[in-house]
């Protein structure tokens, strides 16, 4: 059995065929797992009318690294699906918020656990499920609920994606991934939900068989393309690691 490598040459090549109108999920939570390099390549590539799924639209911290908010600013985004369209503190203002307030982009605001579960459902072939989150809130107004064993639940639908951009620590050529610590977050779920998963990988990509099968966090079944993050300044790491490198 031949095992072809899923490694591709660079970020531009990895995102070249993403069409206008694609639904793209962006991994990451407060830094770890965020696909900065793939997002930068998509800014360069220019696909438009995108639907972008992520926990946040980014931009809460300086210096900024490529994020969904920058795609919005570049006019590439029709809609975002996320658990924050505004910052947790009303005094912070996200770059995204002004585009949203101005009606230049749509947003679907989803509780974080529901977002994770909707992605997981898409990846698991579950078209819809019930959840207790958001019952009795403005988000549930006019929506279908169901009482099960005496408690009210909200019907939620799977959230399938065309593409997932995620970041991992290690990968083998078959696409099996390991995440390090908080890097895992939404990344495996988005890969499961997507038809095409593209991964930026921090370490050198290993030959198939180099990872212990018991220690794989995401099976290569869910992964189509791998790109090694090159050293800075060509490759984007994290804000703080870049600062430290100076």
């Amino acid at each position, binding site marked *: 059995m031949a095992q072809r490598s899923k490694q591709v040459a660079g970020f531009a090549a990895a995102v070249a065929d993403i069409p206008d109108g694609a639904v793209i999920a962006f991994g990451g*939570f*407060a*830094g*770890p797992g965020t696909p900065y390099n793939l997002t930068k390549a998509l800014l360069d590539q220019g696909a438009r009318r995108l639907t972008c799924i992520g*926990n946040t639209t980014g931009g809460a*911290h300086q210096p900024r690294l490529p994020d969904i908010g920058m795609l919005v600013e570049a006019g590439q985004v029709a809609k975002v699906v996320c*658990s*924050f*369209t*505004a*910052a*947790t*503190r*009303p005094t912070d203002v996200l770059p995204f*918020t002004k585009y*949203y*307030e101005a009606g230049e982009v749509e*947003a679907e*605001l*989803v*509780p*974080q*656990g*529901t977002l*994770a*579960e909707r*992605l*997981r459902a898409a990846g698991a072939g579950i078209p819809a499920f019930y*959840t*207790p*989150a*958001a*019952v*009795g*809130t*403005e*988000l549930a107004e006019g929506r279908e609920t169901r009482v099960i064993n005496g408690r009210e639940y909200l019907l939620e639908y799977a959230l399938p994606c065309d593409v997932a951009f995620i970041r991992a*620590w290690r990968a083998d050529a078959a696409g099996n991934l390991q*995440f*390090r*610590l*908080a*890097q*895992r*977050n*939404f*990344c*495996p*779920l988005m890969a499961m939900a997507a038809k095409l998963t593209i991964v930026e990988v921090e370490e050198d990509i290993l030959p198939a068989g180099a990872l212990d099968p018991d220690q794989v*966090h995401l099976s290569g079944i869910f992964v189509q393309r791998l790109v090694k993050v090159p050293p800075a300044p060509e490759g984007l790491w*994290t804000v*703080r*690691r870049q600062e430290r490198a100076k």
Partner: protein
Amino acid sequence: MSATDIKGWDRQQMADRLAREFQDGWIVNLGVGIPTLCSNTDIGDRDILYHAENGVIGYGPVLPAGEEDLHLVNAGGQNVSLRPGAAIVHHADSFGIIRSGRIDVTVMGAYEVSAGGDFANWKVGRAKGGGIGGAMDLAACAKRVFIILEHTTRKGEPRLVPQCSLPVTARGVVTLVATNYGLFAPTGEGFAVIELAPGISLDAARAATGAPLMEGR
């Protein structure tokens, strides 16, 4: 800080006071902002497991600059440490832990808490959209919801109110509220005063609260 002259507890003291309520064996989720300060509190012999929405189970205090692991953050994005027995799960499993009722308490910030135990922390009145994060999942499913907030707005308006004026995060779930004025518990009709911060009189607390304050737990 409150805009008034009255200070009472500072942020760490508010967090410390609620952390004193954590019982041995509890699994605790700490929200962004002041609640994260609870993980700095010395909890002595108690066996407390801190759970973060991003799947970091068993974290400890924030690490000083230069000692952080950049792959490791809590739900507030702070670079924390891990305690022995820590484990990492993905977001769906992390919220599975939350929804299945395994979080003994979640501590969150808020804009308002009502006498009936409703609270609002995701949307300000004028905004389109808001910032929910994990708050609605946690509020609906944790065994207990504790809130930390300044007792009044910067303009001196009460945050402990008869009914929330902002869109709620969940209804009837809050059991304890720590403010710079003290520790309070929603009773339905108002708030029971469990403890007042040093220098805060009952009259001063009543004057800064939008709902009746009752003495005693």
